């Protein structure tokens, strides 16, 4: 059942807006601790590079974070101030890389929806509804796509 819901959400998310910058495949994972993560794709179909400078989610504080894993296996997470998106290219936010952290999100559960507004340096803002899914469902989804 959750697969049907995830597929439907993916289909809806893929529709995006008419902006040459689209946010698709956006999911927030149900938090295991105090914070949740959002993963998604940003596609720039236009001929101008741009930069994501802010993500605002109604009711929550968010931060852009990047997890880096060094050659010796040490993981560090650090805040990033923006994400560059080259012209005619995509950026994927995935586990173990760049992600959006939703602070104090412990109350979020599978089935909730979040209104998120993505602000870019050049393109107009993009607002998307982001579904909250279980971490299991999200991991199964991205493993199935590989």
């Amino acid at each position: 059942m959750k697969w049907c819901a995830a597929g439907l959400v993916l289909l809806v998310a893929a529709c995006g807006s008419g902006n040459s910058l689209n946010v698709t495949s956006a999911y927030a994972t149900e938090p295991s601790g105090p914070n949740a993560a959002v993963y998604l794709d940003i596609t720039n179909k236009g001929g101008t590079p741009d930069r994501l400078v802010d993500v605002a989610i109604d009711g929550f504080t968010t931060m852009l974070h990047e997890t880096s894993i060094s050659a010796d296996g040490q993981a560090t997470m650090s805040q990033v101030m923006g994400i560059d998106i080259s012209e005619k290219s995509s950026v994927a936010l995935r586990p173990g890389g760049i992600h959006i952290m939703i602070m104090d999100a412990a109350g979020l559960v599978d089935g909730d929806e979040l209104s998120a507004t993505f602000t870019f340096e050049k393109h107009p803002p993009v607002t998307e509804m982001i579904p909250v899914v279980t971490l299991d469902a999200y991991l199964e989804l991205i493993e199935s796509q590989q």
Partner: protein
Amino acid sequence: MKSWSSANLVMGILMLVLMTAGCTSAELGDPLGSEGVFQGVELPEPSPKPSFVLTDTAGDPYDFAAATDGKLTLLYFGYTFCPDICPVHLAQITSVLDRNPPLRENTEVVFVSVDPERDSPEVIREYLNGFSEDYVGLTGSTEELRTAEEALGVPPAIIGDTSDPDYLVGHTAQVFAWAPDGLGYTIYPFGTRQSQWAHDLEILAGMGS
């Protein structure tokens, strides 16, 4: 000054193995690429289980080597504030074990928090219960945690500025595994797939049980 143990030496070699394994991918792809018996990163030689004592979520001393003797053991260092690789590792393991009750029966999953400031025993217990009430959660003082990390031969956690309530912690990203015979044959970097976990855990469970 502390001397290097055999575990440190093994881990030094392991770092080279990891570098060639290309474990820095942000994708949940195939970071391992092993063609040996295991699909995890195989150690150059089997490594004995490290010995350290921390405190479990009931407040009792937990002697890692003694408490996990004879069991397939998975050990991970992380912290509950992290919404990214820490819960992903635990979710992957949980999903595999949930599908194989006999395997789960003799597997001990041990989570060591590297964030003693925020992760009280109660916080760790609540966090782990989201995955399994059977998982063992451990904590300790900064010095005790450092001793455990040294016993394992991994770099110490790097704790951010704790005056910032949203401080972050750097920590080793691999899951360490020991078969029931008490020896470690593999480790699992971030990005290990559930199919790879399922493959290796079945093999490891049969070694020395």
